[in-house]
């Protein structure tokens, strides 16, 4: 506790000097707080790449907001407030990006202009096959949301699930579909292999998902 207070006082002093333009103090401050911020962020974001990106985002924010820190005030609450809000913002931004990727992916997959009639029929059959292999909740969520065009609220009422459960189920289903059809998501590639050359050899590893899903 004493050490924490001491380092916080040190940070305040360094920041006050940095506001005057002292680069050495600023360098010491950023190096030290980046370690603390890493611990803070890694406990909230479990992917190391994303956590690193978020830490850098926080450091940039601290840099651009440094005039708002008052040297007489404690440094910790100021820094952690910025960190917390950046993490929330980071999740929001990442969520939007993923939604957009999913939207684009399904638009391409279901776009009649992109494929010939035979290709469309073949694709439909393949999609159906993968969908059939999904757990029931995931399959229904994907079918109703993406192929029937229903809203999350409507699907949640239809399946008697909460809206967030619908989103989670659909998201898991998308990951599997993306992995099978060679989607771009890094996360999906990490979870599942892309479609193999020999189709018979491919078996979607659903065991994990099955164990998580409980039938209503």
């Amino acid at each position: 506790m004493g050490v924490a207070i001491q380092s916080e006082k040190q940070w305040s002093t360094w920041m006050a000097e940095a506001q005057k333009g002292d680069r050495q103090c600023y360098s010491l401050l950023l190096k030290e707080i980046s370690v603390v911020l890493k611990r803070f962020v890694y406990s909230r974001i479990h992917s190391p790449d994303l956590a690193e990106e978020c830490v850098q985002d926080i450091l940039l924010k601290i840099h651009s907001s440094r005039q708002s820190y008052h040297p007489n005030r404690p440094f910790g609450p100021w820094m952690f407030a910025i960190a917390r809000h950046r993490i929330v913002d980071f999740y929001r931004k990442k969520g939007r990006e993923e939604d957009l990727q999913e939207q684009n992916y399904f638009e391409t997959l279901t776009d009649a202009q992109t494929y010939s009639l035979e290709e469309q029929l073949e694709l439909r059959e393949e999609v159906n096959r993968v969908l059939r292999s999904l757990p029931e909740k995931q399959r229904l969520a994907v079918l109703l949301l993406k192929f029937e065009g229903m809203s999350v609220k409507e699907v949640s009422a239809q399946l008697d699930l909460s809206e967030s459960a619908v989103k989670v189920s659909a998201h898991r289903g998308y990951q599997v579909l993306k992995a099978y059809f060679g989607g771009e998501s890094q996360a999906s590639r990490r979870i599942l292999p892309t479609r193999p050359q020999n189709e018979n050899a491919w078996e979607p590893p659903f065991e994990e998902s099955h164990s998580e899903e409980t039938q209503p």
Partner: protein
Amino acid sequence: MSRKRSPQPNSLPTPELIESLVQDLNPVRPLFVYPIRFALFFLLVGLGLFVWVLLKGFRPDFHSVLETPSFWAEMGFAAATAFLTGWAAFQLSVPGETESVEGKKDLRMLFPVRAWGVVSLLIWMGIVSLRFQSEGMEGGWRPMELKCAQTIFLFSVPFSLALFFVLRRAQPFRWGWSGFLGALSVASFVAIALQLECPGAAAAHLLFFHLLPVLGVGVLGLLVGRFLLRGLLAERSSG
């Protein structure tokens, strides 16, 4: 502050990013603590409004109305609303001012100033609404009285924009709350000044042409503040 474009994340590892931030460092003048900025801003707004009242002249019944308890009650809660919401807007605009280390809550979180500001507004509205219930629409629904609402909007919008400019310097994160409280505070100050000038004392007049516009400005502040404070914030963080 540096006008140079700050380094972008992801393009380089963290130690290199730190190095480039250090190279990008320019001296900055720390902002005054928020109570001082609050006092300075509202001193200027108060002074401007007082000069306006002096130029327009006090209401003809000014001396007699000073003897009415309802006038003092309404003015008192209007002033409390203006003060508390303004204070809360400035407090919220500074990162970490309403929070403790690592998100642990303290007493300030349990009884936040912004909650007291909203309570004060509700009491102010309650007092006028009670009077309106007994008085009814008597003497309060003339088209010419729209001028009062216009005056509130006319003064509140530029003052609120100026306030947003002051608030965004401190990097607020709660854009909606900051916008709502700031605009509400400015509008309440304008309503106080207006009540010194406007001869309309009927509850209906005060409710529809003073209080509702104040609330309207607050809601406008919430919408515009979310957009303006967030937009400007994003621009600053990326550039």
